[in-house]
């Protein structure tokens, strides 16, 4: 156990009190809550944006209730910021920062993060970035509308994008968000390496902790080039340099390489934590050991390494050397192998189980079932010859929503419903939880399957009114269907918020270990006190995290901290 963690624990017993406790705390659990609720707030904004632009697509030109008429410039700003917010201010803060902060110390038996004050700084930088991205929507000229990929020269020259202020603030906000996650990532990695409970060896670490740490490493290795690229883009915007300006020796394609060199590993940065969450839930509720623990860890590492060599599949038709497409087709299709393997492992874990379909289990299973669709449709896009047709169509859009929605939304609901008893000491209402589950999953498929069909029909992206394209105009019923399903799904989210508040105030008391799970966070009180365990009674680890239904034992679980 590192001294640093002990010093950190000592510090917050004398830390700020009252309301200050919540905004100036270094406790990993409070910081996790800050990230979680900021992320949820941003998700509501991102969801509202989706509602506005889907309404515009279904009923072009009509005023959208709650918003008004959508102009082409506003439409571009809405789709751009929907994407940016959902990835950088929802998926990352919730999956990595919130659950990473909450789970890592609790699951490895530490009293806090190794660097509690860096942790606090990480959230504060993140909060500033979140405020900035929201401010950028309301400045003169409106929010940035050059897509979340921000390809120059559209993003670099204000005469082209017409949002001089909006695009610069957008860029600064994204860069600050990266700073926040670099700070957080360092903390996660060092904490796992140095603050594990006595007896916890590498293969006794719960998969979700592994996954969050591997994701943090991927993020740290990939984000550097993009930060350099973002600084150059900011200079192009504000100082008039020409890094991406071909008339002055620059090259617009340079940005695309820097962006996607980060952007593709980023997919796995958010995927791995969601896979980790799923592993915890599936093992708990099928009362089974994870099938091939080591396979999962090594496959995740292999995926991470491969993910650095696939980026140009986003650029097949961008004007890169056509021979390069062949290499990236090979690497991209190869990455399907470890991902398929992970899916097989999770499915194999179900074999021979005793499966209890609780709300968190439903979410975890839905993650696998839906992510498979996202996975297989990726093959169409990784195959260069087929991508000529599919590039920048709604097929791409539907594909990555079938990956990101399971990751960021289904994964989050799985984790939230599973660890809610630990976070708040109360059980969530299972009936309301299941209503919310079906009310989200069924409309989700009705949103994006029509969008696959539109993509097959050749519908290209980021168009505010398809009536301008005769071949596409007649597919309007599919657009209306997708929008209708979105509204149904959004309405069902009220059930979730209602359930959250009601269970928080008056839910049944949870006890230490309501799911009869093995990992260390279930051995302390719900919610855990400062320092997580009494300082003289920190947990020790005697076995791996998934020893369920071990033959010869009466109990079908065997917590990691029980000797024998």
């Amino acid at each position, binding site marked *: 156990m590192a001294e640093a963690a002990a010093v950190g624990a000592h510090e917050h017993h004398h830390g700020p009190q009252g309301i200050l406790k919540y905004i100036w705390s270094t406790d990993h659990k409070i910081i996790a809550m800050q990230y979680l609720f900021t992320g949820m707030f941003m998700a509501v904004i991102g969801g509202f944006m989706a509602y506005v632009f889907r309404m515009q697509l279904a009923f072009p030109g009509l005023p959208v209730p709650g918003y008004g008429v959508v102009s*082409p410039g506003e*439409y*571009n700003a809405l789709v751009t910021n929907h994407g940016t917010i959902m990835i950088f201010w929802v998926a990352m803060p919730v999956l990595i920062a919130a659950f990473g902060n909450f789970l890592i110390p609790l699951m490895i038996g530490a009293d806090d993060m190794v660097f509690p004050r860096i942790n606090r700084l990480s959230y504060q930088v993140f909060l500033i970035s979140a405020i900035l991205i929201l401010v950028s929507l309301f400045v003169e000229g409106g929010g940035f509308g*050059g897509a979340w990929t921000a*390809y120059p020269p*559209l993003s670099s*020259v204000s005469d*082209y994008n017409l949002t001089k202020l909006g695009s610069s603030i957008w860029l600064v906000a994204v860069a600050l968000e990266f700073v926040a996650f670099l700070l957080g990532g360092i903390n996660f990695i060092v904490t796992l390496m140095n603050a594990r409970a006595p007896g916890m060896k590498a293969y006794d670490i719960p998969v979700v902790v592994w996954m969050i740490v591997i994701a943090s490493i991927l993020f740290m290795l990939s984000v550097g080039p993009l930060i350099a690229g973002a600084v150059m883009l900011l200079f192009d915007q504000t100082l008039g340099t020409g890094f991406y300006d*071909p008339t002055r020796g620059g090259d617009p394609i340079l940005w695309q390489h820097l962006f996607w060199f980060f952007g593709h590993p980023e997919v796995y940065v958010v995927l791995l934590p969601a896979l980790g969450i799923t592993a915890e839930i599936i093992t708990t509720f*099928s009362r*089974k*050991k994870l099938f*091939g*623990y080591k*396979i999962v860890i090594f496959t995740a590492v292999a995926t991470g390494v491969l993910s650095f060599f696939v980026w140009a599949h986003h650029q097949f*038709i961008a*004007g890169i050397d*056509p*021979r390069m497409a062949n290499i990236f*087709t*090979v690497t991209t*299709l190869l990455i399907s*192998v470890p991902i*398929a*393997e992970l*899916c*097989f*492992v999770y*499915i194999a874990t*179900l*074999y*021979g*189980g*005793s*499966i209890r*379909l609780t709300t968190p289990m439903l979410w975890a*299973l839905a993650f*696998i*079932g839906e992510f*498979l*669709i996202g996975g*297989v449709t990726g*093959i*169409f896009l990784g*195959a*260069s*010859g*087929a991508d000529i*047709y599919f*590039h*920048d169509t709604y097929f791409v859009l539907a594909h990555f929503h079938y990956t990101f929605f399971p990751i960021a939304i289904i994964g989050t609901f799985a984790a939230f419903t599973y660890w809610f008893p630990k976070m708040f000491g109360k059980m969530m209402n299972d009936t309301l939880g299941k209503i919310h589950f079906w009310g989200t999953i069924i409309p989700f498929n009705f949103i994006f399957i029509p969008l696959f069909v539109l993509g097959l*029909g*050749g519908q*290209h992206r980021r*168009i505010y009114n398809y009536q301008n*394209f005769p071949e596409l105009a007649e597919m309007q019923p599919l657009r209306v269907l997708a929008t209708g399903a979105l509204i149904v799904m959004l309405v069902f989210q009220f059930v979730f918020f209602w359930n959250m508040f009601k269970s928080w105030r008056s839910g049944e008391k949870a006890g230490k270990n309501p799911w009869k799970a093995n990992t260390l966070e279930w051995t302390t009180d719900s919610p855990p006190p400062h320092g997580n365990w009494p300082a003289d009674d920190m947990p020790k680890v005697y076995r791996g995290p998934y020893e*369920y*239904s071990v*033959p010869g034992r009466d109990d*079908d679980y065997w917590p990691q901290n029980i000797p024998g």
Partner: protein
Amino acid sequence: MIERMVLQASSYAASVDGLILLITVLVGFWFLMAEGVFFWLIFKFREKPGRKAMYITGEKKSHKKWISIPHGLVLVCDVFIIIGAVKVWYNVKQHLPEPDYEVRVIGQQWAWVFQTPGPDGVLDTDDDIQTVDKLHVETDKTYHFKLESRDVIHSFSVPVFRLKQDAVPGRSITGWFHPTRTGTYDIQCAEICGIGHGVMAGQIVVHDAPEYASWVSDNAAAQ
């Protein structure tokens, strides 16, 4: 599959569609297998009173084969897809057949400008015909297009041809197509290019030979 929704109007459209069909069959098989096994296991191993779960580590060889065999088979399918993808890619993007005509396609905020050869049939001569948002071509001829941009990145996309190529400022990118079917089809800009991106709609008019000849002579005379 796709041809039911979008016509095939170029020489390589069918090969792109064939590749998409190949991928659909291969990944469709794996998808249905995986989902089938997945739902079957959820049903078969649902909680029943008195039944305890099995203890399977998945680390033994006899267990691992349930993962490693499908793993190997997925890899084999990947190889087939890679071969198909590279073949189609080579024919559409890497290999340029000898052209009958050359045209210049210029993207700008927010219109397509086309420069077509005049009666002499050669691009970049005095009798070139310039059009906006309408590209006139002759069927059954091989075209090279020189794709340029005056401002931001655009993408020249003709769904019925299965053709897409980004236009990058500062570069002239050469590609090819060979129309096989007369008619008027959409040209899209497939890369976001500013507030007018949604109205950057062009059309390609594929004429038969006599019709094209009279279009050229009419427009050459007008210039």
